[in-house]
C-alpha cells in the first residue's frame, strides 16, 4: 500500500480513481491462500487469523506494535520483518498524512477538551465508517451486471448542466476499476485451486479443488447459480469491502437465510444439494468469518481493548419484503450451524416478528440456553417501524434489520454511521461542577449555575439539558467535519458499487451516494444517569433529607467518611429497573432530552442524526474517567451498560426490568441494548424454553428493541476468573457481542459477574 502511494499515481489521478487503483493494487498483490480442506476460499491477510493494517487511515507507531505483540489479551505476533518495514518505510511515509492525523488537526479546542475528558469517543479516528449490511442484490447480479449499470450511469452524465458531472465520472470510473479488480481477485483463486488440484492425490479433495476453481471463475463475475456459489460470491465481496478500507465492524450478509433460500430449495428439488452439504458449506462460511481478526487499534485502545474478531451479525427469521413470515428451512439450518460451531463470530441474531412461529423462537432459546450469548434477539416488527419513522419506504424497512451491536438500517441501501459514544452521566458531573471537570479542573462544559443555588429538581434538570445540548453540539460539529474529510479524501468506490443508489447517483458511499444516510450518536450510561438524578430528586429536593452541599462534599471525597450516605443513596433510593415510575419517569426525561438534542438534525451527507443506546465496552472506560456519582457508585467504576439497570440495582425480577426498559420509546431510537443474565437452571426443561420465549414475546409486545441473555452462574465466572486456563472456551455476552470471558480485562470480568443474576421467573 505504501509502495502504491509512493508512486506518482496519487499525483496523476483523481481521488476516487486513486483509491480504486489502490484497491486494484491490493487485489492483484495480495497473497492467495486456499487452505487445506476448505470449500469457501479467500482471506483478508496472507493467512487465516492474520490481519493487515491500514496506515492510510491510522498508522501504528513502533510502540503500538510492541504493545500489540506483548499484551496479555489477544496478542498479535509482530515479526521483526514487519517492524523493520514499519520503521524504515511505513511510518516515515505516512506520518502526518493519515486520516487520524487529518481528523485531530481539524478538530477545535472544545472538541479536543471534551474528547480528552472522556465526554465522548470518535469512531472514525481509527477505522472508517461501517456497520454496513448487504441486501439480496449480489444473489441476482454478477459484477459484470454492475459494470453495465455503471456504464449506463456514465453515459447519462450531463456535462452541460451538472457541475458535479466530472466528480461523478471519476467516482464511476473508480467503481469500474474495482469491479474488474474483484473479478481478477477471484480468478487468482481459481488459478490457485486449479494448480493445487493438478497436484492433489486424494481424489475427493481433487474434485473439491476443481469445483472451487469452477466456482471462482463464475462468481463474482456472474450471478451465482447455486448455494455454494452464493456463499463464495458473498465472501469475495466481504473481502473486497474489508480490504478497500477498515470499516467499523466490517460488513454483513444481512438476512442470510432469506438470501439463500431460493438456492437451497432449487438444489434440493433438483437433487444437486442435500441439507448435509448445505450445512457443511455454511460451516465453512462460518469459519471464514471467525478467521478475520479486527485490525488492531492504536495507543491506549491497543493496550486496553481485548480486540475482538471483526463483527458480523447474521440475521435470521423476521419478515419478508411483503411483511409475511420470513422463517424458512435455511433459518433452522443456520441455527443448527450456530449451535454446532459455537463461534464468537459471525455473531448471530434472530429477528422476531409476531408472525414467526413459536417453534422458531424456541429453537433459538435452546441455543441461548447453552450459554454462549447467542443468538441475540431483535424485535423485527418494531425495527420496521423505527426505519419507517426515519423515512424509509415500507419495503426497504422490512428488508432492513440490525447489524454490529444493535443498530438498525436499510440493508443494501443505507450508510448508517455510528459516530461515537456519548457519556450521559459525565454531563451530570459537569453540571454539578458548573461546567468544570472535577478530575482535571478543566472547563469542558458551559456555566450552568452553582448547583447549591438550584431550588428545584426542575432547575437542576434544565441545567443538565443545557449542558447536554452544548456538548452534543461540540460532538456534532466534529462529526460533520469528519464526514467531509472522508468524503474528500477517503471515498470507497468498491463499497459504493454495492449500496443503492451510489451507481445511479454517481456519488460515493461516504458522500451521500446511498439512498439513506444516518448518523448515530450512541448514548451510554442510561441506568447510571437515571439513578444519579433520581437520588438527587428523592433525597435533596423531594424528601430534603440530604443537602446539596453534603452530597457534593461526599462525591468530592469519593464517599470517604461518608459511607452511611453512600449506603442510603445506593440502598434506599428508587432505582431504574424495578418498574417504579419514580425512577423510570426520570429515565424517560433523560431519554427525551437526549433525543431532542440529536434527532432529526442534518448530517453532511444529506441525511439525519438519530440516537441509539448501546455501549459495547465503553461503559468501562467512561466509568474510569468519572468521579463518584449520586447513585452511590464510587469513582472509576463502570457505568451501567446499554439500557440495562445499574449492576445490582434491579431487585424486582426480570419482568420489572423489562417493564422499566420498555417505558422508553424504543420506536424513536435506532437501537437499544438490554442484557439479562440467567443461571442455566432457570431455563431448564421445556418450561424453561417456553418461559424464555414468553419473556421475549412479552418484551416485544411492549415494543422493546433488543434483548440478549447471558446464561452462566456467577460462581462459574468467578472460577473462570481465578483459573482462566480451565475456562478458555467460556463465552459470555459482553455487550452487542459475545467474547471469551478469559480474554476480557479484569474490570470487565468483574462487571459481568456483578450484572444482576436473575434467580427465577
Amino acid at each position: 500500500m505504501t509502495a502504491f502511494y509512493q508512486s506518482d499515481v496519487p499525483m496523476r489521478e483523481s481521488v476516487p480513481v486513486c483509491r480504486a487503483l489502490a484497491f486494484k493494487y491490493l487485489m492483484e498483490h495480495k497473497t492467495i491462500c486456499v487452505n487445506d480442506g476448505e470449500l469457501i476460499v479467500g482471506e483478508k491477510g496472507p493467512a487465516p487469523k492474520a490481519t493487515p493494517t491500514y496506515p492510510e487511515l491510522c498508522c501504528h507507531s513502533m510502540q503500538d506494535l510492541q504493545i500489540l505483540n506483548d499484551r496479555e489479551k489477544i496478542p498479535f505476533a509482530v515479526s521483526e520483518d514487519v517492524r523493520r518495514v514499519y520503521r524504515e518505510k511505513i511510518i516515515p511515509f505516512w506520518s502526518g498524512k493519515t486520516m487520524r492525523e487529518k481528523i485531530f488537526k481539524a478538530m477545535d479546542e472544545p472538541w479536543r477538551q471534551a474528547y480528552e475528558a472522556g465526554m465522548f469517543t470518535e469512531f472514525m479516528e481509527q477505522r472508517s465508517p461501517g456497520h454496513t449490511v448487504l441486501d439480496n442484490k449480489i444473489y441476482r447480479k454478477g459484477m459484470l451486471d454492475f459494470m453495465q449499470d455503471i456504464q449506463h450511469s456514465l453515459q447519462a452524465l450531463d456535462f452541460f448542466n451538472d457541475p458535479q458531472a466530472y466528480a461523478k465520472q471519476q467516482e464511476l470510473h473508480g467503481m469500474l476499476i474495482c469491479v474488474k479488480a474483484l473479478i481478477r481477485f477471484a480468478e487468482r483463486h481459481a488459478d490457485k485451486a486449479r494448480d493445487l488440484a493438478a497436484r492433489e492425490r486424494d481424489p475427493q479433495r481433487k474434485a473439491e479443488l476443481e469445483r472451487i476453481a469452477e466456482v471462482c471463475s463464475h462468481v463474482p463475475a456472474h450471478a451465482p447459480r447455486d448455494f455454494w456459489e452464493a456463499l463464495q460470491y458473498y465472501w469475495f465481496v466481504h473481502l473486497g469491502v474489508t480490504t478497500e478500507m477498515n470499516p467499523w465492524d466490517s460488513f454483513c450478509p444481512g438476512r442470510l437465510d432469506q438470501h439463500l433460500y431460493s438456492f437451497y430449495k432449487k438444489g434440493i428439488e433438483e437433487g444437486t444439494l442435500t441439507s448435509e452439504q448445505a450445512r457443511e458449506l455454511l460451516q465453512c462460511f462460518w469459519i471464514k468469518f471467525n478467521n478475520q481478526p479486527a485490525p488492531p487499534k492504536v495507543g491506549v485502545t491497543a493496550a486496553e481493548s481485548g480486540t475482538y474478531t471483526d463483527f458480523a451479525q447474521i440475521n435470521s427469521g423476521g419478515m419478508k419484503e411483503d411483511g409475511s413470515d420470513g422463517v424458512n428451512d435455511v433459518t433452522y439450518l443456520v441455527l443448527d450451524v450456530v449451535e454446532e460451531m459455537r463461534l464468537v463470530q459471525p455473531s448471530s441474531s434472530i429477528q422476531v416478528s409476531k408472525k414467526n412461529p413459536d417453534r422458531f423462537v424456541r429453537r433459538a432459546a435452546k441455543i441461548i440456553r447453552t450459554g454462549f450469548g447467542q443468538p441475540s434477539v431483535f424485535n423485527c416488527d418494531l425495527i420496521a417501524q423505527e426505519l419507517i419513522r426515519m423515512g424509509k419506504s415500507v419495503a426497504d424497512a422490512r428488508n432492513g434489520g440490525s447489524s454490529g451491536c444493535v443498530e438498525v438500517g436499510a440493508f443494501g441501501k443505507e450508510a448508517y454511521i455510528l459516530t461515537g459514544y456519548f457519556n450521559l452521566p459525565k454531563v451530570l458531573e459537569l453540571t454539578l461542577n458548573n461546567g468544570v471537570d472535577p478530575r482535571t479542573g478543566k472547563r469542558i462544559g458551559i456555566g450552568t449555575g452553582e448547583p447549591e443555588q438550584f431550588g428545584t429538581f426542575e432547575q437542576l434538570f434544565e441545567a443538565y439539558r443545557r449542558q447536554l445540548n452544548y456538548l452534543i453540539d461540540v460532538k456534532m460539529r466534529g462529526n460533520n467535519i469528519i464526514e467531509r474529510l472522508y468524503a474528500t479524501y477517503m471515498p470507497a468506490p468498491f463499497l459504493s458499487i454495492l449500496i443503492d443508489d451510489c451507481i445511479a447517483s454517481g456519488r460515493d458511499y461516504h458522500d451521500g451516494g446511498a439512498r439513506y444516510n444516518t448518523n448515530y450518536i450512541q448514548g451510554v450510561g442510561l441506568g447510571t444517569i437515571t439513578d444519579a438524578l433520581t437520588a438527587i430528586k428523592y433525597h435533596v429536593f423531594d424528601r430534603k433529607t440530604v443537602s446539596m452541599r453534603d452530597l457534593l462534599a461526599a462525591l468530592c471525597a469519593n464517599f470517604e467518611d461518608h459511607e452511611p450516605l453512600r449506603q442510603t443513596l445506593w440502598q434506599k433510593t428508587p432505582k431504574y429497573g424495578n418498574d417504579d415510575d419514580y425512577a423510570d419517569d426520570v429515565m424517560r426525561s433523560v431519554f427525551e432530552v437526549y433525543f431532542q438534542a440529536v434527532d432529526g438534525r442534518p448530517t453532511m451527507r444529506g441525511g439525519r442524526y438519530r440516537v441509539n443506546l448501546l455501549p459495547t465496552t465503553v461503559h468501562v472506560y467512561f466509568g474510569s474517567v468519572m468521579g463518584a456519582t449520586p447513585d452511590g457508585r464510587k469513582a472509576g467504576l463502570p457505568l451501567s451498560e446499554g439500557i440495562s439497570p445499574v449492576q445490582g440495582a434491579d431487585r424486582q425480577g426480570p419482568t420489572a426490568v423489562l417493564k422499566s426498559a420498555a417505558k422508553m420509546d424504543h420506536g424513536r431510537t435506532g437501537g437499544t441494548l438490554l442484557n439479562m443474565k440467567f443461571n442455566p437452571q432457570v431455563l431448564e426443561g421445556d418450561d424453561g424454553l417456553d418461559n424464555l420465549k414468553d419473556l421475549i414475546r412479552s418484551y416485544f409486545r411492549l415494543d422493546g428493541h433488543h434483548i440478549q441473555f447471558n446464561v452462566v452462574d456467577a460462581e462459574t465466572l468467578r472460577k473462570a476468573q481465578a483459573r482462566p486456563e480451565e475456562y478458555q472456551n467460556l463465552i459470555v455476552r459482553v455487550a452487542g457481542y459475545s467474547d471469551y470471558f478469559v480474554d476480557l480485562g479484569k474490570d470487565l470480568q468483574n462487571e459481568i459477574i456483578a450484572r444482576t443474576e436473575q434467580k427465577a421467573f
Partner: protein
Amino acid sequence: MTDPDKCAACGECVAACPAVAREIVGQKMTVAEVMAQVKKDVIFYDQSGGGATFSGGEPLMQPQFLLALLAACRAEGIRTAVDTTCHAEPQIVRQVAETADLFLCDIKHMDCGMHRQYTGVGNERILDNIRLLAGIAREIYIRVPIIPGFNSGRENMDQTSRFVQSLKTVRRVDILPYNRGGLEKAVRLTGGIDLMQAQAPGDDTMAEIAGVLRGYGFEVKIGG
C-alpha cells in the same frame, strides 16, 4: 439476633440502618395495593397464559382478603390460582372455589398419624376438602412435596395416587423436590433447629416417583 418475644416489629432498626442489614419480612397491604402490583405484569400473563397465584403462608387464613382479591382479578380478566394446604373450614373452601380458576392442593402424607406428627394436624379435613373441591372447583393440581424418609416411599405414593384417582376430576399431579432453603429462615428465627432432618431427593428419586404416578395415568411435572 432478634428475640421474637420482645420485637414489636416497629421497624425503627430497619429505618436506622442505611445498609439494609435488617429487614421486615412481609408488609401490610390493601386490596388496591396488591392489585396495583398484580396488574403490573398483565402483559406477561396474557402472553404466557399465566396469572396471579395466591400462596402463603396459607391464603385461606385470610378468606375475606383473598375473596376480595380473587374478585378484583376476575374483574380485570386475570386468571387466578390458590396454592393451599386445604386445612380450612369447608365453608371457606366452597366460597373461594366460586372465584378461583385453579387450586394447587398439597398432599403431604396419606397416613394421618405421620401427617399429625410432622405438621401438627391430621389429614382428614384436608382430604375432605380436596374431595369437596373435586366436585366444584374449575381445575385442581395436586402437589406432593417429596421428602426422603418422610413421604417418598412407594406405599405412600400408591395411596396418594389411588386417592387422587378416586376424585375422578383431577388429572395433574406435580411433585416438588424438598429443598433446604427454609433452613435459612429457621436460623434467622430460632437459631436454627432442623426439624425435618431431611436431605433433598436426587434426580433419580424424582424421576422414579414421577414414573409411578404416570403409571396411574396422571400428567406429572417435576417441580411444577
